[in-house]
Each structure stands twice: as C-alpha cells, then as structure tokens.
C-alpha cells in the first residue's frame, strides 16, 4: 500500500461534529467578501470624487450679471495661473440637471438662476483659491466659487466611517471564524483522546498531532471558503449590473476593480491560513498540559 494513500492517523474526517464547519467558514467568507467589496467601492468612490474636485471647480455668477460681465469674469478666470479652461454651462445642461426636480417644461429665462462656469485646472493644487476669489470679487460682486469641499468633506467623513465599520465587521468575522476552529479542534482532541495517546506512545511529537488537525482544518476551510467566495462574486456581479442601470450620478460605481476581485479570490486562502494557524496553536496549547 502506498504510504501517501494511507488514512489520516487521527480519523478527523469521520467526525460528525465538524460537518457544520464548512458552512460556517463559507458564510464567513461570503460576508467578508461583501464587506470587503463595500469598503473597496467606497475607497474608490472617495478617490474619484477627490480627484475630480481637485482639477475642477464651479463658479456661480449671480443672475444680476449681464453678458458683458460674464465675459469679463471668463476673461479673468482664463488669466488666473493654473486655470486651463473656463466655460459657461449650457442652458441645455442646466435644464437636464434640474429636470428631476422641476420637470422637463422648463423656461430657464423665467428663473433667477446664477450662471454656472466650469473651471478646469492644470493639476491638483495648481490654484491659489483665495487669490482667485479675491480677483473675481473685484470683477463681479456677489460671485461665488464652489470647489466641492463643502459637500465633499461630510461625504468623505461618512464614507470613512463606513470603512471603519466595515473593518470592524471584518474583524468580528475573523474572530468568529477563529472561535469556530478552536471549538472544532478542542472537540476533535477530546473525541480522539485515545488515538492521540497511541500516537504519543509510539513517539509522535505534538507537532505531528497538530499537523493532522492542520490538514483537516485546511480542507474544511477550503471546502466552505471556495463556494462562499464564488457565491459572493456572483452577488457582486449581479449588484454591479443592476447598479449600472440606475440613473443616479451621485452613487459611486458599484463595481470592483481588478484588485478587489483578486482580494475576493484570495479570501478562501486567507480563511484556510487562519484556520490552519488556529488549529495548530489550539492543539499545541492543549497538548502542552499533558504529562
């Protein structure tokens, strides 16, 4: 009989008490993948918002300004160091932006709306904002510069808080997985006490016994973790497709990048590594109490 075909020296695979473990690990990996995806999508969204608002800003010219005043503002803007371009937002675009709130039959001329000017910057931080505001104030009183920070800061703070919560949930999931493996391993040690005594009697080291539990924990973690990750990936694809059809420009793009997919794919291996390490430490700590 080939030695590599032999049964495990501790018959852990036949333990009915460990049959639930793949389900638990699978659920943990599934939840971890979803939480991780939320954290990564938020981070990506924050990065995109910050990037967008670091190279562009909006100037609101009051309704009282006539076209000559607007031209003076545009000329002043284009002369500011760091500004690449400054162009008024078209009436058609403004109508599109306002349509969800006040409908399609919009007569812009009948509303006292400010004229919006899109300003594109050469690079993030290329502009002295205070100097520009001061300059524009002399060209047209009542002018207002919106660089996005007013609304971006609270959004970023909220997203950051959500990321912290995601991290805590991930830690809880890892802790629950570790407790599960500790419970499984201790049960196995108790059930197979006599077998382990025989192994010790023939000269097995504690690490040899631990190896049996490590292999078992590795198999169970992958047996549950791989389906858990696959199911999570399926859910993320479906959510991404559904979100892609939404007309909600403020929502972050609900799709993972390559790094995110790699992280989801690696989760079962991380679960297996945690399970193996936990099983080893549990066995060694328990056996250390024997004579």
């Amino acid at each position, binding site marked *: *009989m080939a030695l590599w075909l032999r049964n495990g020296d501790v018959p852990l695979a036949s333990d009915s008490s460990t049959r639930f473990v793949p389900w638990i690990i699978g659920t943990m990996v599934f939840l971890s993948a979803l939480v991780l995806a939320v954290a990564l999508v938020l981070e990506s969204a924050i990065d995109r918002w910050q990037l967008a608002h670091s190279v562009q800003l909006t100037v609101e010219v009051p309704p009282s300004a006539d076209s000559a005043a607007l031209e003076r503002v545009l000329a002043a803007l284009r002369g500011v160091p760091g500004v690449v371009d400054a162009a008024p937002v078209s009436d058609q675009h403004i109508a599109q932006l306002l349509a969800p709130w006040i409908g399609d039959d919009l007569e812009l001329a009948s509303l006292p709306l400010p004229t919006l000017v899109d300003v594109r910057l050469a690079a993030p931080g290329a502009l002295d904002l205070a100097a520009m505001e001061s300059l524009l104030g002399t060209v047209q009183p009542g002018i207002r510069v919106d660089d996005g920070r007013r609304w971006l800061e609270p959004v970023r703070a909220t997203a950051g808080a959500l990321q912290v919560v995601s991290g805590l949930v991930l830690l809880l999931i890892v802790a629950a997985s570790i407790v599960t493996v500790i419970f499984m391993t201790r049960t196995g040690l108790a059930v197979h006490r006599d077998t382990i005594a025989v192994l010790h009697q023939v*000269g*097995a080291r504690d690490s040899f016994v631990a190896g049996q539990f490590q292999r078992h924990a590795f198999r169970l973690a992958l047996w549950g973790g791989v389906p858990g990750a696959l199911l999570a990936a399926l859910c993320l694809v479906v959510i991404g497709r559904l979100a892609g059809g939404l007309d909600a420009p403020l929502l972050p793009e609900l799709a993972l990048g390559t790094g995110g997919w790699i992280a989801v794919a690696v989760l079962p291996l991380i679960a297996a590594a945690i399970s193996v390490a936990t099983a080893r430490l549990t066995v060694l700590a328990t056996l250390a109490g*024997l*004579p």
Partner: protein
Amino acid sequence: MGLVRFENVGLRYGSGPEVLHDIDLVLDPGSYHFLLGPSGAGKSSLLSLLYLARRPTRGMVSMFERDVTAAPRESLPELRRRIGVVFQDYHLLDHLTAFDNVALPLQVAGVPAQRIRNDVMELLAWVGLGDKVDVAPPFMSGGEKQRVAVARAVIGQPDLLLADEPTGNLDEAMAERLMRLFEQLNRMGTTLFIATHDTSLPRRFAHPVLRLDNGHLMAGG
C-alpha cells in the same frame, strides 16, 4: 547506571490514594524480567511510568540515563521511540489497516517510505499476517490484533520492550512463537519487561521475576 532506574517512586492519580509505593527498580541493558501480580496490584500503573505516559508524583525515574522525572515534554518523544509496548487491549487504531498500524512508529519517526514498506511487510509476514496487510483491526480476531500489536511494538527495534499480558489472547502455538521472538530480541540486546499473571511463563523461560503486590514491588516469584 541501568537502562531504567526508579528510586523511591510513588504514584497517585489526582488527589486519590497512592497506587505505587516506594518503588525501587533497576533494569540493566539486555536484561529480561517478568512482573507478576494480581489484578489491581498496580502493574499497569508501573508500566505507564515505564512507557512515559505518566510521571511519578514522588521519587526519581531515569530512562536511558536521563532523569525524566521533570524532563521537558519536548524531550520525551525521542525516548518513547526507544520503547516498544504491547498492550493487553492492543491499543490499535481501528481506522487504520494492519500495515498502517504497524508502520506508525516508523511514520512518526520520519523513516523513508520504502524502508517502512519493506520492514512492515516483512514483519507482518513473520507474525503470520502477510495476507491481512490491508485489513483493519475491527475485522480481525483477538489473536490477529495481538500479533499486529506485537509487530507495532518491535518494528522500531526498541531498546526496551514492555508487554502487558502479551500471550493473553493467543493460542498456544502463537504464544510460544511470540515468547521465542521475545527471547530472540533479548539475545539481540533488547531489554524486556513483561507483566503477566501467567505464572507458567517464568517457569518456562528462566528470567528474574518481580512481584507487585498492593503497590509494593518486591523480588522473587
């Protein structure tokens, strides 16, 4: 210094009464002793100290010229590999085949697979189980299990071989053959210590006898 030396050894389980009292014992290399005593006299407890499953609650135990009374746990596996044990109730692993049970001591010692295969097949054939290599203990008779247990005890060519009622489940012919094997191992230098209640064994094989009575060890039969 003997291969095994007990000095004033006592053993108790937990907070219970002492089951072994003031044991003084020396087993010289290559010696052969029978241990006689009625059930409950403490034979199994004494054997458990000898195969390092327990430590004495008092006194000093030295094995292979090492004081094991308070030796670190990590040092014990190497010593246990020098000890073969044949248990009265076999202590075989039911989920493993006869081959894997016998291979166990070599497997845990990291012996190469080819050598394990050769040695185990040869020994199983010698004990008359060449056709039971792939059979697990639950499908064997008591005598067959006993022979697997003996094969496992001697496969690692131990310096010290302990046996607890080794012939108890064997027919007369196989018991005779087993005792001849023990004699042969002893002539090759293995130290033997056999616990039995069969008083005919010491009569047939002329070796020193120790008697254990109510936890006290004394010489003579």
